[in-house]
């Protein structure tokens, strides 16, 4: 729709009040974006609109809202162009795919120089695991009323996390925060291993599996090759839960997930999607 300045005058009041039909609004926006001439009617009428908000008597929001917002903000880093969050790059996933540790990386780790990601995960996993769960839980509670799908996802994830926390509460347990290692995913989750070799993992925001696809969990100890723990499938909710056993998981062991074309892989055939390093939870 090509608009004349007379058209703009005609549409100005509806435009500043957001009351135009979508195609009219788009046409006005297009015009304003390209026309260098002044549009006094837009400014004259638009300048009044903020006062409409001022006509409302202030109402104190519920006290809990402040904490909810701050919790959520801690997890939502300012966007590109904004500055880094207070947690300095802590929640920032590694930008490039994280391969399984190379021989050199393993040697470096053995020499007491763990990788950046491993250091970060070990240092913060225990604290962040709880913070992440808590804040995400709060965010979900806030949205559940109008997002039906989230309810199923939240329930599934919470059940998974409950199992993780049960294991994490045991003496001699280890925990890991699983964070994205590949830009294709934003999946995160928690894992815990018990002294008896139990391994439980709870994930959210995974892409649903299709066909024979499975998410395979791997454990990597020191210099050894990745050892498969088992696989699990993920439905539309994006949540995944895994439980299995391993004799290998000790402090510093790495847990990783890959999306494999079928179950039973003995060596990873796909990039690592999420990764975390186990650390004593106690």
């Amino acid at each position, binding site marked *: 729709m090509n608009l004349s300045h007379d058209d703009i005058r005609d549409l100005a009041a509806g435009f500043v009040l*957001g009351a135009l039909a979508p195609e009219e609004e788009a046409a006005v926006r297009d015009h304003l974006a390209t026309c260098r001439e002044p549009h006094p009617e837009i400014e004259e009428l638009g300048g009044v609109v903020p006062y409409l908000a001022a006509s409302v008597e202030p109402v104190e929001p519920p006290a809990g809202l402040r904490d909810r917002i701050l919790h959520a903000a801690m997890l939502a880093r300012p966007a590109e162009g904004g500055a880094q969050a207070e947690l300095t790059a802590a929640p920032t996933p590694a930008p490039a795919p994280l391969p399984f540790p190379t021989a050199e990386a393993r040697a470096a780790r053995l020499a007491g120089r763990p990788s950046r990601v491993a250091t970060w995960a070990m240092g913060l996993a225990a604290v962040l695991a709880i913070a992440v769960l808590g804040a995400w839980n709060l965010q979900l509670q806030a949205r559940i009323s109008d997002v039906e799908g989230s309810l199923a996802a939240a329930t599934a994830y919470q059940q998974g996390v409950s199992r993780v926390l049960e294991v994490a509460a045991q003496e001699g347990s280890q925990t890991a925060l699983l964070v994205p290692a590949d830009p294709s995913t934003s999946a995160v989750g928690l894992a815990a291993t018990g002294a008896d070799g139990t391994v439980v993992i709870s994930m959210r925001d995974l892409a649903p599996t299709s066909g024979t696809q499975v998410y395979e969990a791997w454990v990597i100890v020191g210099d050894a090759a990745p050892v498969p723990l088992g696989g699990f499938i993920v439905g539309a909710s994006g949540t995944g839960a895994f439980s299995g056993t391993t004799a290998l998981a000790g402090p510093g062991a790495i847990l990783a997930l890959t999306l494999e074309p079928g179950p039973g892989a003995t060596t990873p055939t796909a990039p690592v999607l999420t990764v975390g390093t186990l650390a004593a939870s106690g």
Partner: protein
Amino acid sequence: MTDGTTPGSLRAVSPVDDADRRILAELGAGRLGGLEDLYDRYRAMAFAIALRITADATLAEDVVQDAFLGVWRHADRYVEGRGSVKTWLLSIVHHRAIDAVRRRRPSTELPDPEVPPPPQLIAADVWPEVAGRLDAIQVRAALATLSDVQREAIELAYFGGLSQTEIAERTATPLGTVKSRMRLGLLGLRRALVGEGAEPMPEAGEP
């Protein structure tokens, strides 16, 4: 039409006060303290607007949370000189609240919530000059100078999220009449506001 009678220019002179400036600096540096201060300063206005529009306390909380998180994530989108922090924040609250109520009316086509307003609209900010002198009662008094049908048309759009066409249907009024009520109502409100709170403003339209 109304060229000769348009009230004077209400351009912002000093759009951001010191407290806002400090909040913006904190937000820009990604410090949560800035968000806390912003919240503490404007939470009651933000919640009141969200509540008025949604008429649902839970939804209003979600809207306020979304708006503050939007500001937190996109503090860099604020452009000084184009309006006060308060106007910026409350316009985001308004936008998201309208979006939320329209979402509950499946028949309504939704505008893209992430499209920022054009600069011509952001620039039109009169708040700073008069915010200190005008309280809600005075603004309501200015609204009261409008005819009932003008006020209704404006409020159905601004607080109800209705389009001009929907307002015409709901009030059984021709579309052209609704458009003209909105336009005359906004102009009348502007005249009343300039008279109420902005005596020192230059009356550019009346030299």
